[in-house]
Every structure is written in C-alpha cells, then in structure tokens.
C-alpha cells in the first residue's frame, strides 16, 4: 500500500515513502503539488495583514449621532490566524452631536469563536479610555467586553455600570473613547 495521510490540525499532506517519489500525473498529485499545498497552508498561518473596518456606534434604544468633526475608526489584524487584535477610536464631535439613549454597542470586525458564547453575560476582551472633554474626574478607564446575546462589544466603567448616554456621565461634545480588543475567532 502506498498513499498519503494528513496531519491532524492543518491537514498537511504526509506522503509515505512510495508516494513521496511520484511525479505529477493527471490522476493524482505528485510531491511537488502536494508540497505546494502544504506550504500554502503553513504560510497562511503567518499572514498578518492589517485592515480597517467600519465601526458602528449604536445604542440599545436610540443610536448617537456624530457632530462636527466626529468620527469612528476601527483597525484590526488576524494573527496565527485565529487571534484578532483591534484598535478603535471614536469622537462624538462638536455641533450637532446627539448622545442617543441606552447602553452603547459597537460591532466587532470578525465574529468571536463560538466558545465565547457560553456565558449569558459578557466576556472581557480589552481596555479603553474614556475622556470626558469637560471634566477630569469623570474621565476613566473602561473594561471592553463582548456580549454574546447581541454579538457586540460594550464597556463597563469602574463602578460596574455599562457605558451609556448617561453613565458614567452625560455624554458631551467632543468626548472620546480609544481602546483595543483581543479575542479568538472561529474560522481561519
């Protein structure tokens, strides 16, 4: 008997001693073709292409509206390639900004692994800093969390309250949020 087997995790082709010396034929791939498949699979594990994504800022009741100069920015990379690392920044902006109402939600660029849905509350995935442009004391550090029930990211202030139009303070013009997340995703 001769032939090939495949490795457990990546499905890399492992030819036996007879198979390894076969040439490419119409009916089966020889080692050159098999090696190409293997190398492409291994190589794909090391891709680290960065990308931007549209960061949507919504809320449980009414979504906020960006004012003059306001923006949302999302960037991320996939490593190994199931680990997702992202960096984001938002600024509510000036004139015309409205805070909306309810707990704020933000989308993630890639769906987290299904194992992260086993909780009915939230999974911490990063940190963010909230800057109240009009007050130092209410500027703070938030815990970024993934909520499986909504599939979104939200934030908790040190008090435990979720970041909303009124917590930790009433959102004002030019308030900002900057942070990161890191989590595993399902499909490579």
């Amino acid at each position, binding site marked *: 008997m001769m032939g090939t087997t495949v490795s457990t995790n990546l499905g890399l082709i492992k030819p036996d001693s007879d198979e390894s010396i076969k*040439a*490419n034929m119409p009916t089966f791939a*020889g*080692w*050159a*073709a098999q*090696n*190409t498949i293997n*190398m*492409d699979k*291994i*190589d*794909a594990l*090391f*891709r*680290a292409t*960065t990308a931007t994504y549209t960061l949507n800022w919504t809320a449980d009741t009414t979504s906020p509206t960006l004012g003059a100069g306001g923006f949302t920015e999302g*960037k991320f*990379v996939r*490593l*190994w390639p199931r680990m997702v*690392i992202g*960096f984001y*920044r938002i*600024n509510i902006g000036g004139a015309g900004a409205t805070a909306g109402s309810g707990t704020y939600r933000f989308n993630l660029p890639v769906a987290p692994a299904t194992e992260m849905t086993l909780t009915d509350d939230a999974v911490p995935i990063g*940190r*963010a*800093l*909230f*800057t109240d*442009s009009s007050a*130092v*004391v*209410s*500027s*703070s*550090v938030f815990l970024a969390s993934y909520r499986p029930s909504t599939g979104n990211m939200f934030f908790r*202030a*040190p*008090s435990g309250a979720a970041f909303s139009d009124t917590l*930790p303070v009433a959102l004002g013009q030019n*308030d*900002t*949020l*900057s*942070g*990161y997340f*890191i989590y595993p995703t399902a499909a490579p």
Partner: protein
Amino acid sequence: MAVTFTPNIGLAKPTESELAENWVNGPKLDEDNNLIIIDKMDVNLVSYTPTLISSGTQPNNGVGVEQGEYFEVQGFIFGLVTIPFLDPGVAAGTGGGGYGIKLPTLLDTSFHTVGTALTDVPGAASVIGEAYMRDSSSVNFSGPAAMDVVAVAGVHYGRLITETYTGKTSRFWEPGLPAIVATDDQITANFFYKKA
C-alpha cells in the same frame, strides 16, 4: 531556477522539474523551508530597559530595577514591563503631563495614532495596553490604568491613563498624582502594537 515562494514567510514551492533538479541542494528549498518555519514559531523574548521619563526634572526609581521584555510575531510587538521604586534615591521628578514609559520599538504610525507630547489630552492617541499601579501606602491610589502612546524626541513612550477615583484632578499618572511615588510602589504593564 525560478522557484516560487509563498507571500508571507517565503516558503519554497518548487515545480516537479525544479524538485527533481535541485531539491536537496538548491537554496530556499526543503531545509530552508523547515528553518523558516522553526524560526517563525520559536519566538524569543528580548530584554530591554523601560526608561521612565517626565516632562521636567526626571524621576528616579532609586535602586529598583526596571525590567522590560517583549517578543515579535509577524510585525506585532507583545511586551511587559515592571518598574519598582525602592529607596534610597526614589524621586518623583517634576513636569506636566503623564510619565512616559519607553517602549521597545517605534510604532507604525500609519496604523496607530501616536500623540506628540506627554501633555496631550488622552483620547486621540491609540490605546495599546494596560497597567496596574500599586501605591504601597494607599489602596485608593492603587488600580488599573490604560496605556496610550506619545512621541518624545523621536522615541515612543507609553503613558498610563488612570480610571476615576475620588478626588481625581489629573488624567494621567504623573509626578505627584495621584500620589507622590515612594519606596515599594510599583508599576506593571503589558502592551501590544504594530511596529514601524
């Protein structure tokens, strides 16, 4: 011979004729593939000195030994630092804005937003990590912080942005705030970012 290579880490993909011709002896073929894979997987920790700075008279952590270590994966830096303060010689230094903790490499400024001074208002710069600040004499002034990044004289430094606490009058960890650093105080932090 014109062997093709994979796009990310340059693994060789010889054709049948290239394989027959020179698989064992040619450059960038079987052995090189293995070495490349091993090199990419076997990532080493690198030590560096996470120098602490301020915008005025420089702080001094006394005989405490600051330590930093990092590793690189596909152009991303993952690191951690410890800065203990230990007498004799501990001094808070002076200056407005936050303390800066030297990062091991420059960041990719086309991917991250890097502030321009230790006094920058937080919020505009990228957040790249987190920290724990231990005040050995006060629970109130101990706690977590977020790390953003600013440039000072062409070097990139992490700043620690504090969470809300009673009586908070500064957005940063800075000389004198939230408390004057003293012996047995300690900063520990971790970070990750895309390097330049």
